């Protein structure tokens, strides 16, 4: 695996209060963005998406991505400044077996309304940093030509009316 999810990112991915959004495309090329409740990381460093509803467009699209090797994007935020997007292709959809049943019980014990349809395994091919502060600093460091001129005056006094 070429891309490694860090421990800090793993904590956000597994965090119950983190924001998680999955972006997919349908077989007709239509875009879909859906919020998810439960994601995780397996022992091989793959991203896991716990699919709770069978009939959603995103479930169909994840299967489509697995069948035809299409990328999906999963964005995470802990609401406190850690924001990133994992890009990858679904390589497996777990529908049965000891691991599936263990996760079913965990999710069901947490909230009895939780059912579990399947667990998509996403092999990450890239992790994109989305944190605003990091992106802003990076741009200013690497691309000094960008941005409005008035921001770089020596003195803010020069911005005041004469």
């Amino acid at each position: 695996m070429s891309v490694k999810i860090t421990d800090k990112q793993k904590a956000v991915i597994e965090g119950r209060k983190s924001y998680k959004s999955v972006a997919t495309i349908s077989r007709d090329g239509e875009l879909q963005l859906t919020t998810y409740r439960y994601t995780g990381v397996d022992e091989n460093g793959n991203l896991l998406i716990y699919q709770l509803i069978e009939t959603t467009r995103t479930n169909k699209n994840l299967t489509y991505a697995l069948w035809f090797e299409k990328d999906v994007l999963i964005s995470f935020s802990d609401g406190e400044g850690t924001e990133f997007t994992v890009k990858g292709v679904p390589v497996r959809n777990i529908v049965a077996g000891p691991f599936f049943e263990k996760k079913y019980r965990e999710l069901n014990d947490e909230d009895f309304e939780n059912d579990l349809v399947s667990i998509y395994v996403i092999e990450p091919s890239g992790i994109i940093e989305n944190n605003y502060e990091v992106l802003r600093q990076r741009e200013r460091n690497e691309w000094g030509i960008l941005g409005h001129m008035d921001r770089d005056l020596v003195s803010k006094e020069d911005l005041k009316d004469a």
Partner: protein
Amino acid sequence: MEVRYSDWRSKEESIDKLFEKYPDIPRFVILKTDLHRRGYILSERAKEQFNPEIHHGKGIHLSGETDDTTVEGLYLRDGTAVCNGCVTEDDVVVRDPYIVDYIDGKLVITDQGRIYEEAEFWYKPDYYDKFTSKGTPMWKVLNARGHRLDADLNQYCEFWDIPGGGCKYCGIGVYGMNEKKCGHNLRVDPEDVYETLREALKQRGRYLQFRATQGSLLGGKELLDEELEVYLATFSRIKTLFKENGLKATINTTAMNVRQLERLRDEGGVTYYTSDIEVLDKEKFEWICPGKAKVIGYDGWKKRLYDAVDVFGKGHVSTDAVLGTELATPKGFRTEDEAIAANLRETEELAKHGVIVLDFVWRVGENTIFKNQKSPSLDYYIRMAKGINEIRESYGLSAYFADYQRSGNQPSTDLARI
């Protein structure tokens, strides 16, 4: 192993060519279809990986029991189920089967040395080694087809009592006849079903659906009343396990009349209904299923399916077709093109009335009248799955109740996943 049609590779398009020919059909579904068609055998290395304490081997079926020398099923990497096709060296097959091997720490599906996909054995149900209060082994009461619990309530089909009346592709007749001669009990006790189902559901997260079927029972005050009572005895008992309307079940009966269908709904709590017409052409049906043709008739069977839509609702009624039998010689269609055109015409006719056609891939059985026949090409089954799925979509019919997890048997419902 005896292979009846050993030169098939030189006469049919290869799976690799078909992958290229149908880029919009997932390779998983094409491979699963061919595994059902050709079957698969375990290599010695794969056999070493199979542990009957962990994996699903023996099972109870309408056509008899299987033991731990074969596996019940496989999962592919995308969750696709392979429900049929495990053979042994002792079997006679139409085409040489795929080989499930164990290579580099993975169970894989191979053909002529090429690895096609990873696979996973199905898992042994937790209830399998337990007994009902009457002492019946629970594995002989319900079989677990992946996530579905199957109850075969009676293993004898009375169409075989009509001279020449048995369906020509079906292996139930020989098995049931032999068992009956031996005086064996061919009925499953409703209380055993109740206890086994209750025990099975303790394995949380495993089961999605209960399915009941049986061999046809023609007797009773009206035709099929005896069969109806067998179903009602079981359903009226098991539905007490669930909340109101909470029984997730399908039932597969001989085509019943309106009064009987209403009793299944009202007394049994049945919400999804299947009755297998088996062959999608009147003339071929009358040749292949003579008992059904004599007692109910092709048009009668269709009428009863349409009546079932009135009782259970549009999209809640389906019918299986054992695809490929309509090409059997000497009275079948002469070409695959001709058969596909006829099949899809009839699929559309049924869909117009709210009935879903489900495609069953025919594997020629040794204990059947059609044992010397040859099933069609893989191309045939891909075209049929694609066509059936497109018709279902165009008529707004969903396949969820017989989808990749709840049934896992039909290539067309695998395609409905996206």
